[in-house]
């Protein structure tokens, strides 16, 4: 490896270490790294600007604005309260309804937004009816990470892959991911139910506890009744939401980038509800630090490409095996393990050009049958691996923080004791699924 390659590799180690230590915001680390590679002439300024993928940034910004609009219109709150009423105060139904809702919400919203909507309400409800909130919080975290894997917009690694890999469309995600997501979710639910069987059980034969649950439901009913969403808001936002989804599903045919569709949805939302929404206020809800983090990361990855470091990694991977199935398993497990320990975004950002090198023109796997499965091995590993530890995904960190603020302390070890087997189940499901597709 050349000196330049060593320098970029060293920078990656520093960036990863900085993210793990959490002393400085990861956006500052990424932007700092980007400035370093430019100043050290590891990448020219013009090339650095070209390396920033505005398809990804635009999609993230558009989705953040759309979510902020829907939040401001109280639609998520309304849906969460309706879901609470659906549970009828039953621990089993709270477990199933909110678990399923987390998975579905996460497929269309980012996972952090999902847990921010659901977890506070679930803590209130479970506490209110005398249940320990922990098993329910953990289930929501796991299912939101699993559900997020189902669509292009569900999780940042998917947004990266979907935006940067031209051959992958919005429809490809449900086509390849729906089956492992559903089976993994069922597996995770089964495991959690087994671990917390005493908490998650019916109360229909315990009159006193049935009364306590019903009392909570009366409260939720009152809250739901006082939260009145005007009909034009429900109708308008539903139509815009459907149009955006339609745009995503057909972008392979229309060739309109998902980023443009998301931004158009946000602009439409702001135009239709201009009397209720204030753009200046909504801008505060946009996670600018996340967008800066992505921009900085793209520049660092661009430098790695420029100094041929990614090529060296590709060659290293190829030299390990010439068997595609073995490579699939390496990518799956490596991305799962690394995503559990460090942020999965930088890992996926590095792996995309590496896999492009393997699968693209002149790459050793260009004409190998089913080699495209490497993308799905990467997505499954990165998304499901995020469940492995408390710091594996942003949703985990945010949820445990929310729980702590409400007096529910989940320790790192306690989290890992439940999350490690849950992640193992989902990765084994992925292994079987990839093997099945490989032999098909």
């Amino acid at each position, binding site marked *: 490896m050349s000196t330049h390659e060593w320098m970029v590799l060293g920078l990656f180690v520093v960036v990863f270490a900085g993210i793990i230590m959490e002393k400085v915001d990861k956006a500052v680390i990424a932007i700092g790294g980007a400035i370093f590679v430019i100043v050290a002439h590891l990448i020219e300024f013009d090339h650095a600007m070209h390396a920033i993928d505005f398809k990804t940034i635009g999609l993230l910004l558009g989705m953040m604005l759309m979510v902020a609009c829907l939040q401001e219109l109280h639609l998520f709150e309304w849906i969460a309260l309706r879901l609470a009423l659906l549970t*009828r105060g039953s621990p089993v139904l709270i477990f199933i309804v909110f678990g399923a809702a987390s998975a579905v919400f996460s497929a269309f919203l980012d996972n952090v937004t999902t847990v921010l909507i659901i977890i506070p309400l679930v803590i209130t409800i479970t506490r209110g009816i005398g249940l320990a909130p922990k098993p329910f919080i953990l289930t929501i975290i796991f299912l939101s990470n699993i559900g997020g894997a189902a669509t292009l917009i569900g999780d940042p690694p998917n947004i990266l892959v979907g935006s940067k890999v031209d051959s992958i469309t919005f429809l490809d995600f449900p086509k390849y991911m729906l089956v492992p997501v559903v089976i993994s979710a069922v597996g995770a639910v089964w495991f959690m139910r087994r671990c917390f069987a005493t908490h998650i059980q019916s109360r229909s034969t315990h*009159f006193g506890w049935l*009364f306590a649950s*019903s009392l909570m439901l009366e409260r939720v009913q009152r809250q739901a009744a006082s939260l009145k969403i005007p009909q034009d808001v429900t109708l308008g936002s539903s139509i815009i939401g459907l149009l955006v989804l339609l745009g995503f599903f057909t972008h392979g045919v229309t060739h309109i980038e998902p980023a443009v569709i998301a931004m158009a949805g946000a602009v439409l939302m702001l135009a239709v509800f201009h009397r209720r929404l204030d753009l200046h206020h909504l801008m505060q809800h946009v996670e600018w630090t996340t967008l800066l983090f992505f921009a900085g990361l793209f520049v660092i990855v661009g430098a790695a490409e420029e100094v041929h470091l990614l090529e060296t990694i590709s060659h290293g991977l190829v030299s390990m095996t010439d068997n595609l199935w073995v490579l699939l398993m390496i990518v799956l497990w490596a991305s799962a393990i690394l995503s559990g320990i460090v942020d999965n975004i930088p890992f996926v950002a590095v792996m995309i050009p590496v896999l492009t090198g393997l699968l693209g023109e002149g790459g050793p796997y260009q004409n190998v049958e089913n080699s495209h499965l490497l993308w799905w091995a990467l997505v499954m590993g990165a998304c499901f691996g995020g469940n492995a530890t408390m710091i594996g995904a942003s949703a985990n960190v945010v949820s445990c923080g929310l729980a702590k603020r409400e007096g529910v302390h989940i320790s790192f070890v306690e989290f890992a004791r439940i999350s490690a087997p849950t992640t193992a189940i989902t990765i084994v499901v992925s292994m079987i699924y990839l093997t099945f597709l490989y032999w098909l």
Partner: protein
Amino acid sequence: MSAIDRELVETVNRQLLVLDREGGSDAIATDVAGAIARAVQEYEGDASREGLLRELLLLHDVLLEMRPRVASIILDIQKLLLHVHQSPNATQDDVLRFLQDLTQARTDRRQQVARVAAGLFVEPQTLLLHSYSTTLEMLLRHLAEIRRKPRVIVAQQQEVRTRGILRALQSASYDYTVVSEYSLSHMAHELSCALFAGLTITLDERIVLSPGSANLIEHLRSAGIPTYVILTTNKWSYWTEETETAYREEREKSIGDLRFRKQVFSHDPVPLSSIAGIITEEGVLDAEKTREVYEAEREVFQATEELIVSLERDLGIE
């Protein structure tokens, strides 16, 4: 033999405190009746008359353990128990019908209170409001309907309670203004009278009100402003309290980097003698008349409690 589930008591107590804070004492009774109805509907255990009676007796005991006890819900469950005991063929549907009737009777009582209280507002007045209840909201609506709206000053307290009053005033287009409860002395001279929503009256003649009321009432008394408390007779308590009337909690708080422990009290007890009268469905009662009605109602309550104790003994409930 069955004993009280302490965890259940704690859970229900926490819920009732939140419900009281969010909806006031009237809403609690409605919520509890609704919750009993829902529990009866979904109960898959022994739903025979004896089975229901046993479960309702246990719930009665749990509700008696509440701190503070909510009289209206205890009186309601007493009535329900008597009904089930006296109906040889009581079924789940029968219990649900009875609960509906109870809810209707509660609404009728509140409407009657609104009519009684309207009698205080014949002349144009400036009224002080502090606590929120659905009966108070009903009164504000009624006064607006009969065109006797007073000007209102709201003494601001916990956000959730003040919000309830403000919503009610706004929806009935009242002329109102808000002042911090600790700054009321600057505006006391503008007031004609004050109206509070009461939680209960206890055996030792103390009226239990929302936090902050005691100071206000003491101030109003020294300023010679009459204070009335809305308190239907189904909210009166007829037992000796073994613990403090107001539920006390110590909470961790901080101002900037300064951390401290704050004592939080759920209610304020005020002596009956501090107020001008209690507004009930039977009229505006002064202290003397209140004692009279209280004694008569207490005898009925005790007779019912004795019957319940004997029923529990028969069913082997501890």
